[in-house]
């Protein structure tokens, strides 16, 4: 129902039906062929990157690299919401990028399966810069079936429990370390008319974070590892059911308030609840800090607290475990004509100057030399806490929607949304996930 209808005359009305529906159908077949000219002559490397605020760090790195290299890197910044689709379309077309940003794990599995990526395992093994440049757990987190396909290129993004310090002080509540603490906090805040946890339910993925942490605390990281490795029956693990039941309990207890279904993260709904003092806590990726810094600088500097996700009674997971996005990676298209130049560019990701640029941008790099630089971060305390949290974590589970292939991740988000909305029971959730093929 777009401008197309205006071009239709009265006489063509009967064709409009077919026409409009065909536009939809046409969308299906239209493979995006714009964007960079992939690996064409003239010595250009096209690099797709997720277009958000952090792009300026990559832009600077490209500029630096192009000064000395014969093969020039051309950075294509794709707006965030478009990124996954555009990359997918481009990779299926002749104009694919040579290098591209990704989340590792399931986000690159289709490309690995289609033999479209350069296996960087031996490159990492034989090259000291790459081998010693990054935290090993981060490189592992992005690899697939024991093979390395990506070079870390951005900051770490663990999911943390953020809270409003003032609200905790005013209501005399302790920052929850255990499940009992958490339930006490829920009760107290609810009694005062404060939503215990802000949750952007309409975006769905914020709900996923609760599932990720709960499953880790209840059943340990191995349950999801099995699922990630393609064992669908692992959804039948009792820990998954317990996780879903815990979610239902939280929803029923009013932990997220009543209207979380229509609150979003993207447009600032949930973060505003936290900084206006309408919600006490917010489980979110570490980018919440910079989001708050942008929306309410005073609040971010003075009142924003952060901590680990609490333990769950009877759970076997290590309370130091972390979930989230370890970092983002560059992967190399197997069809590139300039593989050596591409790898040379990727090596600059381990350099001190690149890590410094990330730190200056407020990110926490995943390079092994990062610890000493963090004191220079715009917020040293937050950066250091984050770095240590990840460094100490026995396990870093990749966000489920990135770890799983889209065939599983999309239904998963739908099912989780139904579970939170009370449209399905924990048992139905488990059954639905086991049935996903």
């Amino acid at each position, binding site marked *: 129902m777009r401008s197309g209808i205006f071009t239709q005359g009265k006489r063509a009305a009967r064709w409009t039906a077919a026409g409009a529906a065909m536009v939809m159908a046409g969308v299906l077949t239209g493979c995006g062929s714009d964007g960079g000219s992939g690996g064409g002559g003239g010595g250009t490397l096209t690099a797709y990157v997720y277009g958000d605020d952090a792009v300026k760090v990559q832009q600077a790195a490209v500029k630096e690299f192009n000064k000395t290299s014969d093969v020039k890197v051309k950075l294509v910044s794709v707006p965030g919401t478009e990124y996954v*689709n555009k990359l997918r379309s481009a990779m299926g077309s002749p104009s694919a990028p040579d290098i591209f940003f990704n989340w590792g794990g399931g986000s690159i599995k289709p490309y690995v399966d289609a033999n479209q990526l350069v296996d960087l395992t031996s490159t990492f093994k034989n090259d000291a810069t790459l081998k010693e440049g990054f935290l090993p757990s981060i490189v592992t987190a992005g690899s697939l079936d024991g093979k390395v396909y990506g070079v870390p290129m951005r900051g770490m993004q663990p999911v943390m429990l953020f809270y409003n310090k003032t609200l905790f002080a005013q209501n005399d509540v302790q920052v929850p370390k255990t499940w009992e603490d958490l339930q006490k906090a829920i009760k107290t805040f609810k009694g005062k008319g404060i939503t215990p946890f802000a949750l952007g339910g309409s975006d769905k993925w914020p709900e996923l974070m609760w599932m990720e942490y709960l499953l880790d605390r209840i059943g340990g990281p191995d349950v999801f590892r099995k699922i990630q490795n393609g064992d669908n029956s692992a959804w039948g693990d009792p820990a998954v059911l317990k996780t879903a039941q815990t979610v239902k309990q939280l929803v029923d207890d009013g932990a997220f308030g009543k209207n*979380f*279904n229509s609150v979003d993260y993207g*447009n600032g709904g949930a973060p505003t609840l936290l900084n206006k003092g309408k919600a006490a806590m917010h489980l979110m990726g570490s980018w919440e800090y910079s989001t708050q810094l942008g929306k309410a600088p005073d609040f971010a500097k003075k009142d924003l607290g952060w901590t680990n996700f609490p333990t769950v009674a009877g759970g076997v997971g290590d309370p130091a475990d972390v979930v989230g996005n370890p970092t983002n990676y560059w992967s190399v298209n197997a069809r590139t004509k300039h593989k050596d130049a591409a790898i040379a560019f990727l090596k600059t990701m381990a350099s001190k100057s690149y890590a410094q640029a990330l730190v200056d941008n407020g990110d926490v790099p995943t390079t092994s030399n990062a610890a000493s630089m963090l004191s220079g971060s715009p917020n040293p305390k937050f950066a250091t806490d984050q770095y240590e949290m990840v460094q100490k974590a026995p396990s870093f589970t990749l966000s489920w929607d990135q770890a799983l292939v889209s065939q599983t991740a999309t239904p998963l988000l*739908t099912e989780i*949304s139904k579970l939170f909305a009370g449209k399905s029971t924990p048992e139905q959730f488990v059954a639905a996930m086991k049935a996903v093929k």
Partner: protein
Amino acid sequence: MSHVSSSPKVRGGRKAAAGNVGRPPVAWALPGILFFALFAIVPLAIAVYLSFCHWDGLNSPTSVGTANWTRLFKDPEFRQAAWLSLLLTTISWVFQTPVALLLGVWAAGRQRSRAALSAIFFIPLLLSTTAIAMLFHALLDPNFGVIKKIGPWFGIDPNIMGSSTGALLTVAFVGGWQFMPFHTLIYQGGTRQIPQVLYQAAEIDGAGMFRQFFHITLPQLRNTITTSSVLMIVGSLTYFDTVLIMTKGGPGTDTTVLPYLMYRTGFQTYDLGYAAAIATALVVVATALSLVLVRFSGFGNMRSTREGM
């Protein structure tokens, strides 16, 4: 609907061939036909072909026979989406048609300040769908939107987007708000074409405003109603942008209409074969509906509304 068809005879001073009543030869339609074939028929054919394939967008499509279609008929999600699409279409039609019809008839008159008001009514159509969806999304934010303040006055729960019925009604309302001006315009044009003599005769016979409306305006607008309805129904069946931005198909899957299900299957799950099957089903349903509408309304015969004049 005013159809400006200046005949070439008048315009270019060229004499049309005898017996060919001022109508351009078929060749003139060629660019249009080619364009239509290239951007509509060919993609449609490919979509139909893909509906018999498994395709992830990266590897070559592999044939799976009718697997996608058998899955389609058994898929509860498809059934729910089809039902929601029908519901949305019905609500949209019931909501938009009376209002647009009355506004259009009113706008066809010669009242004072009519032009200025009509221009204002037209504004929603000039805004981009995305902008409108984001605007309403902000207004309906349950914590900080206008709905938080105003909703309770009318007994509306501010969490309107969080309830299944509320979310669907909101989507229908926002679509209606945006496209009503377009249909108003169609009705305005249609009403303007009704010959004044009919009203003059009715007045002499003593018919009041309501009788004139029900016995002249409404019957004379028969074809206009069909046109508007076909556009509205097809538009609602393929309505997608607002759902994507405002509800993302939620809460749960309660606003996952067919086009959104197609999008999710195709561009989030990358099951392009199954998505093509959904798309093809949508084409068939939309085409069938408009054909039925055109046939039963007598629009297809193109009978003049001025019969007997």
